[in-house]
Each structure stands twice: as structure tokens, then as C-alpha cells.
């Protein structure tokens, strides 16, 4: 896995251009290097907050999730194992899981929250070519999916619902939901692999 640095634009548009890779910074966290944490915060807070906001729909709760994730990272940097994949993916996965736990603990969702929304609410400042391309690819691929397929994928990923729960929520047969999920994911996989 190639170590990458400077992934996302920082809060307020400050862009991290330090040479240290994510993996190097995480290793420094084990030695209580606070500067390393600052750098990681500046790289990732925007996408993590955006993901939390997308899932929870409330800024205060999204802030809580981001705060918890960075606090955990500070306390237990060893939980990230470089051999298992890129730090950015791990951190996004941790954030998603934390937000879904938060969502499941406190709320029931409403129809409004199911709207599919991929419109940026701020300037798009991704400064790392590889992830920038991946982001463009997944957004394009999702936009090309039929709405019903995109909807079930969204409900699974951003609401943490199982296929059974999605079927109940939409009032559709389980088999229909399974077929939509499979077809949608297969198309996304094909698009992603073609772009690589």
C-alpha cells in the first residue's frame, strides 16, 4: 500500500501539504505527538464531518462523532493496522460505524432523510489526486444508477439498514430489494474497476 499524504482540505480551507504520510503520522501518535494529530485533523475533519452529517443530519451530532473518532485515534492509534489497508479507508469506516451506532441509538428515520443528495455544500477542495479521482468516479457511478438501486445502497450504507429493514421501510418485497442491491453494487464495481 502506498502511503499518501495531504488528502483533504482542512477546516476553513487551510490545505495540509506536509510530506508525512498518514501512516507516519499515526505512528507518531503512539508517542503522544500532538502535532501529528493536528495534521491528521486538518486532513480528515472535513470529510469525516461531512460523512457524519450525511448520516445523522444534525451538525451537533456530527461534531460529536468527529470528536469521538479523533479522541479514540489519539488514545488508541494502534487500532489502525497498516497491513489491512489505507488509513483513510479505515478512518472513514470507523466514522461511519460510529455515526450509524449513534443513529441507531437515538432515532427513527423519516422519509425526508432518505433523499439522495450528492450536491456539495462547500467548495470542493480535494488535494490528493488519487482520492480526488476516486471521489469523482464514485459520484459519477452513483449518478448513473437507476434511482431504486441507488436508494437501497444509500439506505444500507448511510442509514445502516439491513436488506430486510430496507424492504420493510420501502414496503417492497425482500427479493426486490436484494435484486436492486446486487445489480446496483455490480454496476458500481464495474465502473470502479474500469476507472482503475
Amino acid at each position, binding site marked *: 500500500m502506498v502511503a499518501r499524504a495531504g488528502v483533504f482540505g482542512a477546516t476553513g480551507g487551510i490545505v495540509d501539504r506536509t510530506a508525512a504520510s498518514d501512516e507516519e503520522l499515526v505512528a507518531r501518535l503512539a508517542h503522544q505527538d500532538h502535532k501529528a494529530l493536528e495534521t491528521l*485533523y486538518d486532513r480528515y475533519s472535513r470529510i469525516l464531518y461531512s460523512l457524519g452529517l450525511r448520516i445523522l443530519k444534525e451538525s451537533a451530532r456530527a461534531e460529536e462523532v468527529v470528536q469521538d473518532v479523533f*479522541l479514540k485515534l489519539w488514545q488508541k492509534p494502534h487500532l489502525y493496522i497498516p497491513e489491512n489497508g489505507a488509513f483513510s479507508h479505515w478512518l472513514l469506516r470507523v466514522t461511519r460505524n460510529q455515526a450509524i451506532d449513534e443513529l441507531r441509538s437515538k432515532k427513527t428515520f423519516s422519509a425526508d432523510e432518505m433523499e439522495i443528495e450528492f450536491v456539495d*455544500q462547500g467548495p470542493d477542495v480535494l488535494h490528493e489526486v488519487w482520492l480526488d479521482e476516486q471521489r469523482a468516479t464514485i459520484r459519477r457511478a452513483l449518478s448513473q444508477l437507476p434511482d431504486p438501486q441507488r436508494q437501497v445502497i444509500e439506505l444500507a450504507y448511510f442509514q445502516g439498514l439491513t436488506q430486510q429493514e430496507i424492504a420493510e421501510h420501502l414496503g417492497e418485497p425482500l427479493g426486490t430489494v436484494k435484486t436492486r442491491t446486487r445489480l446496483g453494487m455490480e454496476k458500481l464495481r464495474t465502473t470502479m474497476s474500469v476507472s482503475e
Partner: protein
Amino acid sequence: MIKNDRGHNWIEELLPAYALRALEPEEVEAVEDHLIDCRACQQSLAGFERVTEALPLAVGLKSPPRELRERVLRITRRERIATESRVGWWASLFRPQAAMGAVLASVLFAIVTFGWALSVQGRLSQQELTAGQLAARVAEQDEVLGWLSSTEAVMKGLQGTEEAPRARGIFVGYPEGNSSLLAVYGLPPLPEGKTYQLWLIRDDQRTSGGTFAVDPDGNGLLLVKAPDKMASYQAVGITTEPLGGSPGPTGYRVMGGNL
């Protein structure tokens, strides 16, 4: 329970939803059983996992408030200072050549830094302290500070047993007084419903010196209030007991030492 005998094709159809974490538990189990031996499904899943990894990148970007950055960095910075203080304090306590004065100063530092009711006894949060409890807490601190600062305070080392071989402890007290301070390090965290209990030993009789918990690093502090002068006790021991403590030792002995 879903058996894995429905075949490769059935599992293959579940892989996209598996990558999305959208399967029911029994389906997850079936997929994971199948994946152990099926190279084709492992490769197929890897492609779906790449999609799942990319999905969070599709969200609309929005910057968090500036205050969040300040808050996160403030909290983590504060935690670092607390950790460094704690480590420094314990290191000085357990350094063999540490002078008594330095140890006592460390204990004083611990009391001031961590607060009596908060970390010594671990039962009350600051918000829960009533005026009466607060007054008692201050009086307790005054008493301990009084005898700790006297030149007659005595320090004894405690050793972990086979149940906790890496644990160490220190017992600091004024022989003619009824209170002492117990500090331990390296005790294993206990399961829910259990506590550590200190026993003051005299002529094979055990008197409870109080119960205490330890933090995730195994550190714990206890202000010991004995019914008699500390000089009248010959040894101390620590056992694991049900939460709330026991009238007499019932659990494993994890630490002990002569006074």
C-alpha cells in the same frame, strides 16, 4: 439457522449486500463460512469492498465549525498532560532509590492533581458532590496533607502475588494515626460487579481498609481509614471481592506486604 449447503451461487449473490453490511446475522455467518475456502468469492468480494470504501467519498463536503478543531485539540492536549503527569508520578513512586521526601511530594501532587473524591475513591463525580460531601472531602485532604508533610510518615512497598505478578503497591501512613494512603500499579482491571478490597492484618485477623477500583492501566488509590492506629497492624493484603466489599476476604489475594 441458514446452512451453507445452498451453494456457491447463493453465497455469491449475497456478497454485494455483505460488503454493504446489509445482511442478517445468519446470512453473514453463512457467507463468512463460505469465504474461508472459496477463492472466487474472495476475489469477487474484494471488488465490492472497494465500492464500499469509496461510498463515503460521495458525500457533499461541508467544513466543520472552527470551534470543533479547537475543542478536539484542547481535549487531547489536556489528556496528554494528564497522562504525562500520571506516568511521572508513578515512575517516581516505584523508583527504588526514591527518597522519602520525593515520594511524599509525589503523593501530594497526586492528591492535588487528581482530586480526592474523583480518582481516589472513584465513587462520586464532581457534579454529585453535595456541600456536606465537599466539606468532608476538604477535611480528608487536610488530614492527609498534614501527616504526609510530617517527617514521621512511613512508606512500605507491596508486591503482587501470582494472581497479579506485575502489580506493585505502596502504603504510606503515619504510624500513630488512623489513616494511610494506598497506591497500586499494574493490577488487572476487574469485571463488572467486582472490586478490590484492602485488608489490614493483625494477629491473623482481617479488618477491611476499604474498596477501590483501578483505571485501565491498573492504577488505583485508596485513602485508608483504620479503626486503630496504623502501628497496631502487622501487614496488609488486597483481594478481589464482590462490588461493595465483603466482611472478610473471599476472593483471590492479588497483593500484600508487611508493615
